[in-house]
């Protein structure tokens, strides 16, 4: 066993949360080391290719999946520096006021230990640092906050066509809130609307960790060490304080990185798995699991893509992958017609490529042979698409436990038991119905819906004010271990309808600030 030199903070994972922790703590003069399981990427590696883009997602995490619904862990995670945020689409709506009080307002699920007003400042600060394009006034569903620093992204013909469908049904649309630069911002280039978001954005127009927070972190002295897979968090003899982490280096050797504070931000699945695999005599059920809830309340967005085929060239190859417009009209329980609790939204006018997960070919999986060839020719310029995300209710039975199978390092794999909640399914069903209506109203020749799938895995280490019913406190700090913090969607007690990356950034920003302000108590 080899020991590295002790640092103030070791951060497991270099994605959305890990990069923010690294930037903010390095800025405060802390000695920070980030251990990233995957390879080092630079902007030069972000080839514009739907096939090469798949390198940004690995063959891990490997899972045993026992539920009805796949969580698509590899689609929803990343490999290497930047994690999933390197290839994410940048749709950044805020969680809404009521998302933080689901149980109080709706009687199901959980409440957060914080309210919207407690995170609003972090949302505003991250927005200013990252640069979000949008129109806060037009986005009438948006909770209070500073106006977006950048004007909306451009709307091409696809967006105009679909918007006409919404409007003919009396539904409002707004510019999409998106972490893609509509204008040059803080030395970064503006988007050129070529739709390569999924392959990573080498010009830095899309908010990814390489362009923003990892750059800030390394400028302030943080070290990002790649090909270093953390297997366990280590603790002192009493099990009350972390002493560092154990990891496998590029050659497979076992090393220990001692640290005063540990941040685990390794994606929802890997964060939970790491804590469960960190069991020891003092915490036999896993680190931070005195509540017995580590791994529980796993959630994902029930997602569905609506497709419509137009006869004319709608410029579907232009724009950002995440879309051009947004709508939340008539998608909430508060409106009596709605059958389920929770919310939904539409991301409208996705930029499309011929192949891959957001490709023309996969939109009609039943077609093959000459029918597929004919469809591809028609879809190349005429296919329109929009995605609906719905809220998934936190359900205790949805959980991640350890499998009896092991990875190449001898650590137990994750076993996932996940079924979309009845509420989530009801919301999804409503989106299916609405999507057909909207596209028909828009004048499509053909309209159809894609399959139900899961996006944005969250929960499993939920935050709360009571150590008996949650895993971390309101700052993402383990109730059981005073110097271990968690980052990422795993700490969410509810998932909202909103894409998670913005809130992951905001929570990490808030937790890092808390750590810096209370450093002596935390790192004692």
């Amino acid at each position, binding site marked *: 066993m080899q020991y590295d030199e002790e640092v103030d903070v070791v951060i497991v994972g270099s994605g959305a949360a890990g990069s923010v922790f690294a930037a903010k703590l390095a800025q405060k003069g802390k000695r920070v080391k980030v251990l990233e399981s*995957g390879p080092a990427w630079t902007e*030069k590696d*972000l*080839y*514009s*290719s*739907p*096939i*090469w883009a*798949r*390198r940004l*997602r*690995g*063959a*891990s995490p*490997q*899972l*045993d*999946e026992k539920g009805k619904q796949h969580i*698509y862990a*590899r*689609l929803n995670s990343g*490999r290497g520096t930047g994690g999933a945020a390197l290839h994410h689409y940048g749709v950044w709506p805020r969680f809404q006021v009521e998302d933080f009080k689901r149980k109080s307002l709706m009687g199901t699920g959980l409440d957060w230990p914080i309210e919207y007003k407690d995170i609003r400042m972090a949302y505003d600060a991250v927005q200013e640092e990252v640069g979000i394009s949008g129109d806060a006034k037009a986005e009438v569903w948006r909770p209070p906050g500073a106006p977006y620093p950048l004007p909306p992204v451009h709307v091409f013909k696809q967006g105009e066509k679909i918007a006409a469908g919404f409007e003919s049904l009396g539904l409002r649309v707004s510019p999409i809130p998106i972490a893609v630069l509509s204008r040059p911002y803080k030395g970064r280039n503006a988007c*050129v609307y*070529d*739709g*390569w978001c999924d392959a990573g*954005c*080498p*010009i830095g127009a899309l908010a990814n960790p390489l362009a923003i927070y990892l750059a800030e972190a390394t400028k302030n002295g943080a070290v990002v060490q790649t090909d270093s897979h953390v297997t366990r968090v280590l603790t002192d003899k009493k099990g009350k304080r972390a002493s560092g982490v154990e990891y496998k280096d590029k050659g497979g050797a076992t090393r220990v990185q001692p640290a005063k504070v540990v941040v685990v931000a390794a994606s929802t699945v890997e964060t939970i798995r790491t804590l469960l695999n960190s069991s020891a005599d003092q915490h036999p059920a896993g680190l931070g699991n005195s509540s017995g809830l580590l791994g529980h309340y796993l959630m994902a967005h029930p997602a569905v893509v609506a497709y419509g085929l137009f006869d004319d060239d709608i410029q579907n*190859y232009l724009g950002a992958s995440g879309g051009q417009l947004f709508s939340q009209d008539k998608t909430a329980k508060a409106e009596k017609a709605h059958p389920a609790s929770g919310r939904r939204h539409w991301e409208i006018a996705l930029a499309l*490529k*011929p*192949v*891959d*997960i957001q*490709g*023309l*070919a*996969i939109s009609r*999986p*039943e077609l*093959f*042979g*000459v029918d*597929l*060839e004919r469809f*591809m*020719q028609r879809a*190349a*310029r005429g296919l329109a698409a929009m995605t609906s995300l719905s809220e998934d209710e936190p359900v205790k039975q949805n959980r991640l436990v350890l499998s009896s199978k092991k990875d190449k390092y001898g650590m137990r794999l994750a076993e996932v038991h996940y079924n979309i909640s009845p509420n989530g399914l009801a919301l999804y069903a409503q989106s299916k119905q609405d999507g057909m209506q909207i596209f028909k109203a828009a004048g499509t020749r053909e309209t159809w819906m894609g399959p139900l799938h899961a996006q944005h895995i969250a929960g499993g280490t939920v935050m709360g004010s009571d150590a008996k019913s949650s895993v971390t406190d309101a700052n993402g700090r383990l109730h059981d271990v005073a110097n271990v913090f968690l980052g990422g969607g795993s700490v969410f007690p509810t998932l909202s309808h909103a894409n998670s990356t913005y809130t992951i950034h905001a929570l990490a920003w808030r937790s890092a600030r808390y750590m810096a302000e209370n450093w002596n108590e935390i790192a004692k």
Partner: protein
Amino acid sequence: MAQDRRTFLKLSGLGLLTYSVGGASLLMTPAQARAKKVPLTVLTPDEARTLEAFGETLHPGASEAGLVHFVDHQLSLDPDDCMSLVKYFVNDPPFINFYRAGFKSLQDYSKAKYSVSFVALKDADRIELVKTISRDNPKEWPFPPPAPLFYMVVRNDTTDVLYGTIDGFRRLGVPYMPHIVPPERW
């Protein structure tokens, strides 16, 4: 051998892979590798014949575009580096196990339903069979992976090889607009 930028872009657009021939690494498209009968590294000759027949049914032109050499190349890589969509939908690498089981089931199912292997089926029967397995897992389909999953993954491989490169975009009239042109292998 040094290439000028024009040649490099042209080669990249064709979706070149690196093939080992006689101990030397050569840049070729999967179609060229097929035409030159470059030896396969993972797939057996039987598996290659099955994949070619299945792929040609899924999308005419896929076999000539080099589907077999494309899939063989992806399966020869470390699973993390694999660039087939199989990586997203199949939990347990090595992914050759997925394809191998799928080929076996396809052949067995064909023999159970039509008394001949898939490769020996008439075109109309191939189409009928594929239509069936694209929707459901028939009870005569003997092993995992489920038939619709196998269908979906190989179908994606065919569309990758036909439409996933600059040439493929061009065939559809879709502008490629690269920030960074993919390097020589793909």
